Each structure stands twice: as structure tokens, then as C-alpha cells.
């Protein structure tokens, strides 16, 4: 691994790290983002995808609610292609929910959240799937869907266009130091374990739930409590707006329309390590039961997979000295607190508030570097150079405007039929060195995320690995198998009904028709190992336990 140097090393390729990289680039600061898996493969890619209007926090956490309101409005301006303006409902199902209503309405009023009470009939006219249990409905137009993958990729691409660099599948494994001054980081290729260094003036630790583990590499403590949440993906949109339970935030009380799917969530449980994400059957059942309280069809729709993410909850009690920017995220200036010059951490927060978090932490880092250029991320649109980030939105129309038949060109084949991904949507990513495997392609294009869970697109994508990337057959076969394997990890939690039948078709196709398992035995590829859990994105499931966790048992 060649050694290199830069101004700032950003650790972590989630929404926070991506936002930080773009902020730095817009301020003209040279930076490299280092991510041990793929972009958005950590918590961000496993979030619920709700662009919070703030309604969920307006009673218990005013500061967070206000941040959501403001950031939501900014994101709709600067990141149009990643936001779907679904609007949202807060619905009461029980008497306790109804008792919460006055506080909710008051909270919205205080924090400036647009909110309107509408009749249940009117709500049901707009959302026919609203369950018969629903008693009262509030309409919150500023709830939305935020596509976490496009958001991260969009931020990183915007930064790259301004000279920033990214290194995916590269882990920060240590640091370089001269006295009390940080001079660089040690890096390691996550797959080959090859090592190298990046010399720099400053490091921003944006590793979310991993922030404590990374800080420990630098010899300081950041208290992050990893709190796991499980979500269940249904194969289609039952409602077109986000549906929230109107009550004290709890388990299973949000259904988010994520483009073509509905995502039920979420649970909440402390875990010993950010990579310990077992999904319990009980959680899956609970998500479905709770979702069914608000929406009809939840129990009969096809559950496609379950996945889990881990919240980077910042333990404020222990950080009384910390630079507290809000109750929800914290910027920790390690120079001030621990005497390490050039090291800053940013933890907590939400995808919705990533931009603000980036702004605050880069303010600190920039001051250290003596750069006084102000933050402009709230003004400059993400897509300022017309990159077709929103290529997958409203996909039926993407397929082209109908023409008279004699003029109609032959249809291009689709690569992923479920998510309508065309060859040209995928092609650029095969040229991107930051893209390593088919999972990385999935995060950028949604290939493999539909009801067949990659049964069909996996072999087409593997073929593109050969034609577009020049890998050999056995390697492509292995990549295909790995891709199917990561899909399988999430699907196996919802193994009933049509999903079960679908997986039997998948098995028949790949094992019996293509003989993939036999092919893998005949052509073992040297040096390959099962994909790491961190590279899994919307996967979830029980991975091998990290050694340090196992040791604690």
C-alpha cells in the first residue's frame, strides 16, 4: 500500500464522514476519507431512511427537533435527488396515544414543525392502507424518505469532484504522532491486510458507533454506547407517506416508504460491540405486529428481509467536559480535552442532521488548520454538476417515453429486474476503484434489493465483472456467490410464504441449474474469505463475533 499525505484524514464513510469530506472540500481543504468497509456500509446504510420532520423528537428532545426541521429544509434544497417528499402521518391507535396528542401538538408548535390535524376519513382517502385501529391523525408534510446510499455517495462524489480522495475497504489501524501533535494514520487494506500510512495535519474521527474503538487507537476515550435496532423490509409500498405512531418514541412505531419498499422499525437494545448484530425472531415478529397496528397489509405483504443497525449513542454523563453541541451529537476536540493536537471526534446524531454535524466538526478542525473559509454546504447543491444521482427515482419513467412502435429502439435489457436497474446505471461503478464487490455495486444502484433478492441480477452483474472489469470466471463466480450469501443473511429471518418459495427458486437456479456450489469447489480462488459483516449494508444477521467481544464472554 503506497504511503501518501493530505491535510485531513476523515475516518468513517457513513453519512457523517461523507458530509465532513464534502465540507472540507468546499472549504478548499485537501482530505482523504478512509472507510474500512464500503461507503454507507455502517449504520447509515442500515438506518430506517426517515428524513425526520422533527415530529418524533418535538416532545422529548426539542433541540434535536429544531435541528431536524432546519436540516430537512436544507436537504430538500441541496440534496433533492436523495429526498423523496413523502410527507408523514402521526397516528393514534390507543387511548394512551391519544393522551400524548396535546403534548405532540404543542411540541410541534414550539419547535416550528408544520403539523395539521386531519380527519381519519381524509387520511384514509389518501392512504387506503391505514388500519381500522387508527383513531386520530396528524399530517406532517416535512417527513420524508432520505436515501442513505445516494446521500453518502452523492456527498463523496461532490467532494471528489473538488479533489478529495476516498479509500474504501481500508481500515485505520493506528496513528503517527510527534509529541502531542498528530502527524498521520496507519492504514490497512481490509482484504489483503497490506499496510501503509497517510501523513496529515489533522484527523476527524467520524466512525459513529465505532468512534470509541477508533479513539482508543489514539489512546483516548470516547464513550459510545452501541444500541442495536432491527428493521423488516416489506416488498412494496403499503403507504406512500411515512407512518409514525403518535406516542412516546418506542419500538416498531415507524413505517417508512423506501422507494419501492416499506421498512418497519425499529427495536432498541444495547449490544457489546457495533458488529454484534444478531436478529432475533421475536424482534421480527414484534415489528410486524406493531406495524400492523397502523397499516393494513403488513401481515400479508411479503417480508423480504430483516436487517439491523447500531445507533452511536453518545454517553454524555461521562463527557461532562466535552464540547457539547447538542443533546444529540457531540464534537469532541481532543486537543482541548486530551491534549492531542489535530484530533477531533464527532459522534451521535442522525442521518438527517449529518450536514450540521459535519459543519460543526469541520469548524473545529479548520480553526486548527488556520483556515477561515466559512461552511457553504447549506448553499451549494450536492448535484451541482448535473451528476445523475437521481437516476433511479420514478423509475418507470426512466425506462423511456413511449414512441411509435416502428421508431422504438430495441429495449435495453435490465440488469436488476426488480429494481429496474439498467446496464448504464451500473457501468460507471465498475470503473470506480472505490467499488470492490457486487455489494458495493448494490449500494450505489439498488441492484439485488428487490423481491428476488439477487436471484436474477447476481449472475448478470457477475458477467459484467468479466466484461467491464476483466476479472476471470472463477473470481466472478465467487463474487456472485458472496453477493447471494449477503442477501441470504437478511432473508433467512423472514423465511415464510412467498419469500421462502422465492428462495427455493433461487436455490434451484443457482445450485441446480448453474451448479454454483460445485463450481466454487472446482475453482477455489486463492485468498478469498467470506465478506465481512461490515460490508453488508442492509443485510444484518449474525456475523462471526469479533474476537474482543468473544473474549469478554
Amino acid at each position: 500500500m503506497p504511503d501518501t499525505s493530505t491535510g485531513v484524514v476523515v475516518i468513517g464513510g457513513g453519512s457523517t464522514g461523507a458530509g465532513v469530506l464534502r465540507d472540507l472540500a468546499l472549504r478548499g481543504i485537501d482530505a482523504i476519507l478512509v472507510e474500512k468497509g464500503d461507503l454507507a456500509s455502517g449504520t447509515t446504510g442500515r438506518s430506517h431512511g426517515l428524513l425526520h420532520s422533527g415530529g418524533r423528537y418535538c416532545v422529548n428532545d426539542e433541540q434535536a427537533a429544531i435541528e431536524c426541521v432546519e436540516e430537512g429544509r436544507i436537504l430538500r434544497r441541496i440534496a433533492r435527488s436523495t429526498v423523496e417528499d413523502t410527507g408523514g402521518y402521526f397516528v393514534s391507535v390507543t387511548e394512551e396515544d391519544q393522551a400524548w396528542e396535546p403534548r405532540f401538538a404543542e411540541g410541534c408548535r414550539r419547535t416550528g414543525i408544520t403539523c395539521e390535524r386531519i380527519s381519519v376519513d381524509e387520511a384514509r382517502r389518501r392512504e387506503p392502507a391505514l388500519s381500522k385501529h387508527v383513531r386520530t391523525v396528524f399530517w406532517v408534510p416535512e417527513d420524508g424518505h432520505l436515501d442513505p446510499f445516494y446521500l453518502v455517495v452523492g456527498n463523496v462524489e461532490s467532494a471528489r469532484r473538488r479533489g478529495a480522495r476516498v479509500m474504501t475497504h481500508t481500515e485505520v489501524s493506528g496513528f503517527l504522532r510527534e509529541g502531542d501533535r498528530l502527524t498521520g494514520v496507519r492504514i490497512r487494506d481490509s482484504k489483503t491486510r497490506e499496510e501503509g500510512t497517510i501523513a496529515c495535519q489533522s484527523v476527524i474521527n467520524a466512525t459513529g458507533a465505532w468512534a470509541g474503538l477508533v479513539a482508543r487507537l489514539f489512546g483516548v476515550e470516547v464513550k459510545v454506547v452501541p444500541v442495536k435496532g432491527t428493521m423488516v423490509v416489506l416488498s412494496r409500498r403499503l403507504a406512500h407517506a411515512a407512518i409514525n405512531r403518535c406516542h412516546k418514541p418506542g419500538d416498531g412505531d415507524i413505517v417508512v416508504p423506501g422507494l419501492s419498499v416499506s421498512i418497519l422499525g425499529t427495536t432498541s437494545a444495547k449490544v457489546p460491540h457495533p458488529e454484534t448484530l444478531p436478529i432475533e425472531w421475536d424482534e421480527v415478529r414484534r415489528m410486524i405486529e406493531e406495524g400492523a397496528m397502523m397499516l393494513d397489509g403488513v401481515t400479508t405483504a411479503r417480508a423480504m428481509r430483516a436487517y439491523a443497525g447500531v445507533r452511536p449513542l453518545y454517553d454524555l454523563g461521562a463527557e461532562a467536559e466535552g464540547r457539547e453541541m447538542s443533546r444529540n451529537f457531540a464534537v469532541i476536540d481532543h486537543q482541548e480535552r486530551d491534549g492531542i493536537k489535530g484530533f477531533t471526534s464527532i459522534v451521535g446524531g442522525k442521518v438527517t442532521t449529518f450536514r450540521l454535524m459535519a459543519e460543526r466538526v469541520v469548524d473545529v478542525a479548520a480553526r486548527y488548520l488556520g483556515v477561515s473559509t466559512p461552511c457553504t454546504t447549506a448553499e451549494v447543491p450536492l448535484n451541482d454538476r448535473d451528476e445523475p444521482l437521481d437516476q433511479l427515482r420514478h423509475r418507470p419513467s426512466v425506462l423511456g417515453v413511449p414512441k411509435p412502435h416502428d421508431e422504438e429502439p430495441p429495449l435495453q435489457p435490465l440488469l436488476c429486474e426488480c429494481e429496474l436497474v439498467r446496464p448504464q446505471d451500473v457501468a460507471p461503478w465498475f470503473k470506480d476503484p472505490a467499488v470492490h464487490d457486487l455489494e458495493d455495486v448494490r449500494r450505489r444502484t439498488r441492484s439485488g434489493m428487490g423481491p428476488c433478492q439477487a436471484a436474477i441480477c447476481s449472475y448478470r452483474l457477475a458477467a459484467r465483472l468479466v466484461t467491464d472489469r476483466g476479472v476471470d470466471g472463477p473470481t466472478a463466480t465467487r463474487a456472485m456467490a458472496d453477493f447471494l450469501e449477503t442477501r441470504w443473511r437478511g432473508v433467512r429471518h423472514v423465511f415464510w410464504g412467498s419469500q421462502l418459495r422465492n428462495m427455493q427458486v433461487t436455490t434451484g437456479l443457482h445450485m441446480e441449474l448453474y451448479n454454483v456450489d460445485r463450481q466454487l469447489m472446482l475453482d477455489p480462488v486463492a485468498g478469498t474469505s467470506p465478506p465481512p459483516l461490515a460490508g453488508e449494508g442492509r443485510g444484518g444477521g449474525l456475523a462471526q463475533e469479533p474476537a474482543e467481544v468473544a473474549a469478554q464472554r
Partner: protein
Amino acid sequence: MITEEFEPTTDTVEEEASVEACTKCTACNTVCPVARSTDIFRGPKALGPDMERFRSPQEAAVTPGLDLCSGCKLCEVTCPSQVSIQEYIRRAQNQGAREKGRSLRDWVLGRTRLLGKLGSMTAPLANFGNSNPLFRVLMERFVGIHRRRPLPKYQWLTFERWFRRHPRPVKPRRKVAYFYGCWVNYNDRRLGERAVAVLERNGIEVVVPRQQCCGIPAVVNSNMDLARRYGQENVRHLTPIVEEMDIVASSTSCGLMLKHDYGHLLEIPGSERLGAKTYDIMEYLWMLHEAGELDLNFETVPMRLLYHAPCHLKSHGIGYPAMRLLKLIPGVKLEEVDEGCCGISGTFGVKVEKYDLSMKIGSRLFAAVKAAGSDQVLADCETCRMQVEHGTGATSAHPLEILARAYGHG
């Protein structure tokens, strides 16, 4: 009624079928006659269940090629998971037409009964126009009906009027109601006459209840609302009748509407009972045979015949009763062509932009028919017969006509 005495052969498809049931096995695409013939059609899987995930009451998601679905329903017949592929496509077509508006042509083609009324009232004139080359060029230009597509001849005397003057048989054993459809009424009365003759020969009194167009032309011309109106009318007229007798239809598509689509596609309340009591005429006659009631005193019919099974007949899920029946007739040498869809699909192959495709779809069938050198090609569906004649120059007939002949009727 015959129904009580037989195992019901109507639709036993699970009600559960939905978009979620699609396992992407692709069986539907492999049987789709349109997908096989053009690369601008994405196939039933894509336009049905795949696209359905993206459709919403708010967005029609009219995708290119959606109108190329000819409505043959082979996809649904084939689907191992009983996904209502056709219904998704039909609804999307309908919604698209509702938003964009319908062309004059599609407006007219959806109203077969109106067309029939006008055509039969002005029969000589209509037939002259329909076969006049100059007129056809204008028709293609301004209406969008392909100039080479032969159009059905209209007859002055409709089946309805003929039947009114038809004497009732004495002492019938059973009664059955005949759903003759627009075709028999306005274009092919003689088929209706034979249907009546065959039924009466077997001691069955034929009743002709008031009826409207079954609605399938409206469905395939993206006007489900109109189809539903027609359907509701039929349900109103026919429901009281099915309490006393079964209904038979001599057109496979009409029969399929009554049996299946009123309930499933058009969701007309109260249509289930009607559906359960409706039979294809050949299916009904076969049931009669199984009950030992079919008159088997056939005259020898020394003919070499080819049988083409219409797509919509396959949708009935009753096998090929016509083949079974005709094999009872001495002298008949009957073979199935089995070369797939003829391509016309009702009004589909009439349209200027679809004519070539329709002929291409039928080309395998045409070649096989030409090679077989038979006396006649049989098909239960009227437009299949038109298409086979057009594509091959052969003559064609409804299988019932052979049966009638064996009973000594022309």
C-alpha cells in the same frame, strides 16, 4: 340444470394470488407470444408484477410497450404461482388511457355491439366499405385500422331477430341459456343457428336472454369502466336466469369474461354465481356426453381437420373439449397444430401499428397450417379463425359446425 350433476369445472384458482406471489421464475415470459416476436416488449413479468411494485393510485406508471400486451392471458395460465399478471397490465393500461385519453379508434373498437348495430343496419354499404381499397387507405390514415386486415362481414338479419322467429322444440329434457355474443349476432348468425340446432338435437331447449356485449373489446381497448358497465348489465340480466339453467357461450372470450373476468378483473359484485354457471359450449356438450346424454348418432364426416386451440380457451382450464368431441365423429381425422398464438388477439391485430407484429406472432402457426394441407382449420375463437384465414388462405370453422354437420345440418 346440468351443473348439479357434475364436478364443477370452473375456476379453482386460489384467491391468494397477488404480486407478492411472483417468484420471478420467468415462466410467463417464455410463453408470451408478443415477447417472443419483438424486442420492444419487456414481457409479462416486467410489465405485470415487477412494475406493479412501482405503481400507485397516484401514478399510473404507463411504461413503454404496455399497450403491446395483446391480452392472450397465456402468462396467467402458465404462472405456477397464480399471479394475476394480466390484471396488473390491464389496470395500468386502463389508468393510462384514463389520463391520456383514448383514440377515436380505441373508443370505437371497445364498442363491438354499437359497431355491430351500425354494421348490420347498413350491411351492404359497410361490407362494401370494409373491402374497398381506397376506403381502407383512408380508414388506415384517419382511424388507424390496417388496410390489409380483412374486417368481418356484417349481416342484415341478426341472430336475435332470427331466433325470435325460431320455433320452440316440443318436450325438451333441459333448458340452457345461450350467450351468443356480438360476433354471432352481427357477423355469423349461422354459427348461432348451428349451436341452437346441436343443442336442440340433444333435447335441450335454448333460451336467449337479453344480453349486452361481454365487455372484452372494451377491456383490451383500455376501457375497463365501460367493460364494467357492460358486465354489470349482463350480471343483472343473467343472474335470475342462472337460478334455473346454465349458460353456454360459443365464443371463448365472451365465455371467459362471464366465467372469470367479471369477478376477478372487473370485480363486479354478484358475478361469482353467474361465472360458476357459465360453460363454453363445447365444454357443455362434453359434459353432456359424460352424462351419457349426448346423441351419438353421427353421420360420417370424411374430413382432415386441424385444430388450433385459442389462447383464451386455454385460460378456461378445461382442456380441449372440441378435440374430444370431434374424435367421436366417424371419418373425422383431427390433429392439433400446437404452434401457439395466432397473433390477432381480438382487436389487437387490427390496429395499424400492431398489424405486422400480429402477423409475425402468427407466422409459426401459418407455416404449420400451410404445411399440413388439411381441409379446414378449426378454432373456437372467431378472431383466431379470421387470422388463420388471412394468414394462410385456408378455410376455417368453429368445431361446433363440424358437429352440426355430423348431425346432418349443412
